[in-house]
């Protein structure tokens, strides 16, 4: 049913989405924490920057990424000086672009969960002599778990569904940048509709199950919170 190229694309997509999700959880957590707690005037601007990929067309993002990572771009000059070379047309180029692209999908659920906690648990922990780090790791993180799970699932799924950005900076290299969505696009363009159907159906099924999981999980955790309060 799947050709070898399809399997390569599926495997690459899974690797990309996993890498991006892990990175985003690491990068997104402090951003979400800061956004959830701060009263700084910067909250608005930073929050807006994080949310930009939600509203920007992927072509805009991809186009600026291509320029920024290029030999004359800010990122391109940095990576060249570090001896990494240029990032477009490489797996790590896609990782970087996807981290930006999926950032709001990870930051926002975590931020919402942290905001919902309020000050109370932190104050209680402080009276029990928990230091700031201890309060964060032993109180905030466990209590925000539903937010983290939603964030991880959405970040993963959104990266799997990424297309426009990959098209702009990928260069369609097998096992490196040819992800499932690009493979489908190629099939459709080449009028190989049969193969396109197989992969497309897989994507529809995958996306449905993911969203079903997210909604099921949210209902469950909302119910849990309801019992507690």
């Amino acid at each position: 049913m799947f050709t070898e190229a399809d399997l390569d694309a599926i495997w690459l997509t899974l690797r990309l989405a996993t890498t991006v999700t892990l990175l985003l959880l690491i990068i997104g957590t402090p951003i979400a924490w800061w956004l959830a707690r701060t009263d700084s005037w910067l909250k608005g601007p930073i929050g807006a920057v994080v949310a930009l990929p939600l509203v920007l067309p992927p072509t805009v993002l991809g186009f600026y990424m291509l320029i920024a990572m290029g030999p004359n771009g800010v990122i391109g000059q940095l990576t060249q000086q570090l001896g990494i070379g240029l990032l477009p047309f490489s797996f790590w180029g896609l990782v970087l672009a996807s981290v930006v692209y999926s950032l709001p999908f990870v930051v926002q659920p975590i931020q919402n969960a942290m905001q919902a906690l309020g000050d109370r648990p932190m104050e209680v922990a402080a009276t029990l002599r928990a230091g700031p780090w201890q309060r964060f790791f032993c109180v905030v993180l466990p209590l925000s778990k539903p937010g983290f799970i939603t964030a991880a699932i959405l970040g993963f799924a959104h990266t799997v569904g990424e297309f426009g950005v990959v098209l702009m900076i990928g260069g369609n290299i097998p096992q490196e940048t040819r992800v499932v969505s690009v493979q489908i696009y190629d099939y459709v363009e080449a009028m190989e509709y049969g193969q396109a159907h197989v992969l497309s159906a897989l994507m529809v099924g995958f996306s449905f199950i993911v969203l079903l999981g997210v909604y099921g999980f949210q209902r469950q955790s909302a119910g849990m919170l309801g019992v507690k309060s």
Partner: protein
Amino acid sequence: MNLIKHMPWLVIAGLASQPAVADQVHAAVAANFTGAMKSVVAQFEADSGHDVLLSFGSSGKILAQIQNGAPYEVFLSADQAKPKKLEEAGVVVEGSRFTYAIGALALWSSQPDFVQNDYARLTSGEFNKLSLANPKLAPYGLAATEVLEALGLTEATQDKWVQGENIAQTYQFVATGNANLGFVALSQIMSQGHVTEGSSWIVPSELYSPIRQDAVLLKKGQDNLAARDLMLYLQSDKAQDIIHTYGYQTE
């Protein structure tokens, strides 16, 4: 009050008078012909008084759109295969197909002096990436692979290939400097008969099969005077002179 009472008549009068004023034609055009088509159409509109609506895209996508009922009346493909396919499907006005342009391929870099009007740079291997259009999808990509095959450089360069989904994207990879070498359509780097920036090698046409680009009148445009006029205009000397300045040949 009066105006409202007469509204139906005004509408009917408006409808009836429309064909006499000017017709509108909707044409779908392969991405590589974008620049040339805009120039030709500007001239055509001035000469004929007709109005042309242009949609650009890859021929493959346009084909799929036509098969699914897109409102195009004229189709300028990047190849011959797709117009032929539409002929077989019976959505084309019989006998309307003709070759409006023959495309040329160029090896191009956005850096000056990177390519010395030959393919030495390709042989030397001293370039970071070689950008070409996906040969499965784009005629210019297929031509590029034929050239590499003819020069015996397919295997030596394959690791450095990056593929654009169409020739416009292939150009973009090179123009932004992310690939410092690439096979693009000559029409993309040529304006008023000259290559305007970077450095290039115009690939001799013996090295690849001719990129014949065919146009067809679709049945949707059968009774549209503007569509028929546009098809005729594309074959006129005036239009062909414009097309030549973009690096295409004509028959």
